């Protein structure tokens, strides 16, 4: 199922999946999903636990194949070309599609500066300035610059949980990817930090296409422009967020968003 484009005037889609099926050994966790992600918007992926949301997300940057027994069929198109094509370099792909995980994972042996710069390919000596600029831009983009500008060379582990997650976001956006994937980024955070991240997600969409997996429906309703509802590995319905929550077309969608299960 895909969304109803024509009447709603959605922006062009750089990222889309075509009949995407993801399996662990022989068990399909995600089945034949066709979904498009409008550029520079936030798309939320919701559904009960175990429905394949995270697995699906990890297909978008070719992380799923790194899991034990992970296989993928179908296509994921980024700017028209399939990322699973043999000629595509998975490493370079991951620099175009960034990811932030549920648990904040700054690299413990690196400073704040080094953490943010970790994803940048430093191609030679003369580029040191460029790296500093990018780090600053990324930290500003992650709304962390003001808090850490004076201590860029201290250990990243001294930051609070919410700050560490924002650091991870800065690290993910430093290489200026096209797409940013967020896998339940606030599940491990306290409410105050969660609020900060949610505000940040709204800001990110001006520069990046954002896909956020969340088990928190209210969060999806707050931050996203489009929402996709997954159930038991299948995409049930995808539409503008308002429509999903107020006017779902499928019964199962309605049952989920009204809290009858999940």
């Amino acid at each position, binding site marked *: 199922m895909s969304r109803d484009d024509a009447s709603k005037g959605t922006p062009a889609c750089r990222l889309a999946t075509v009949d995407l099926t993801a399996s662990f050994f022989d068990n399909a966790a995600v089945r034949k999903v066709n979904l498009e992600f409008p550029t520079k918007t936030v798309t939320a992926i919701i559904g009960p636990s175990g429905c394949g949301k995270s697995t699906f997300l990890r297909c978008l940057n070719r992380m799923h194949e790194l899991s034990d027994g992970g296989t993928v069929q179908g296509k994921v198109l980024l700017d028209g070309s399939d990322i699973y094509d043999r000629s595509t370099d998975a490493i370079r792909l991951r620099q175009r599609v960034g990811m932030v995980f549920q648990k904040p*994972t700054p*690299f413990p042996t690196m400073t704040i500066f080094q953490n943010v710069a970790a994803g940048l390919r430093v191609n030679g000596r003369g580029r040191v300035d460029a790296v500093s600029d990018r780090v600053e831009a990324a930290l500003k983009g992650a709304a962390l610059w003001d808090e850490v500008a004076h201590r860029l060379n201290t250990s990243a582990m001294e930051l609070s949980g919410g700050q560490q997650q924002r650091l991870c976001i800065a*690290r993910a956006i430093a290489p200026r990817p096209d797409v940013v994937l967020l896998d339940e980024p606030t599940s491990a955070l306290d409410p105050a930090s969660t609020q900060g991240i949610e505000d940040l997600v709204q800001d990110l969409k001006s520069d990046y296409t954002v896909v956020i997996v969340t088990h928190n429906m209210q969060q999806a309703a707050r931050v996203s422009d489009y929402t996709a509802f997954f159930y038991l590995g299948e995409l049930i319905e995808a539409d503008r967020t308002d429509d999903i929550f107020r006017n779902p077309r499928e019964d199962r969608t309605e049952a989920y968003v009204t809290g009858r299960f999940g």
Partner: protein
Amino acid sequence: MITMTGRRFRRRIVSRVMTSATVLAATLAVIPLFMIFAYLLLKGASSVDLNFFLQNPAPAGTSGGGVAPAIVGTGIVVGIAALIGLPIGVGAGVFLAEFGTSRLSFIVRFVSDVLNGTPSILVGVVVWTWMVRPMGHFSALAGSVSLAILMIPMVTRTTEEMVNLVPGSLREAALALGYTRWRTSLKIVLRTALPGVVTGALVAVARITGETAPLLFTAFGNLNFRTDPLEPMQTLSLQVFTYATGPFPEWHRLAWGAALVLVTLVLVFSLGARYVTRRRF
């Protein structure tokens, strides 16, 4: 009623006795330790002076002389062994931890376990066959190789354990940034596990510093001051052995001194290893 109390009383006595027995066991176990250290200090300290460190051994039967060749020899043999053994051991450990399910890792682990339990003298025999015999003479290098062979399983095991402690989420974060698997292993995982890996390395170095058996027919020992690794070389451990089993009382005195230096060296490495991990907390 009376029999119940009697039996309970007896059980209580038994419990007390056995508990005390375990305390006794613990005390007995620790006594030799104190005895050894006490004798090392008492008998060894008296023969350790500046000359001890600087001079070569005196001719047999005469008094005086030092163990300078042995000290330098220990440094060279252990140093080269570490240069060979540490990279291989750490590399193998990282390999096992990161790629631990492949068939190659099963072989590596098996070989490592077998080597771990092999008597050190047999390693010396093997290296004698591979190196000393073809070369035609004993050498420090052969000694280093046998020590390295002993070292590798130890270092592999501790490295693997430490690397396994690094949470998978860190690896995932690195991979998601576009790191290759090897770059993730080396730059992120190993760096995070480094304090523990260094500890394991220091402990292994401490162990091989005290080894004698594998050196008996590889490095063999030397009365003269030598620094060329291709020549037979003396080490503190060999020196203690020669002097302790020799016929001269003077030698026995020097043996205690050499033993004191050797044990001090081993302890420095062992305690250094603990110090490294303490700083992490």
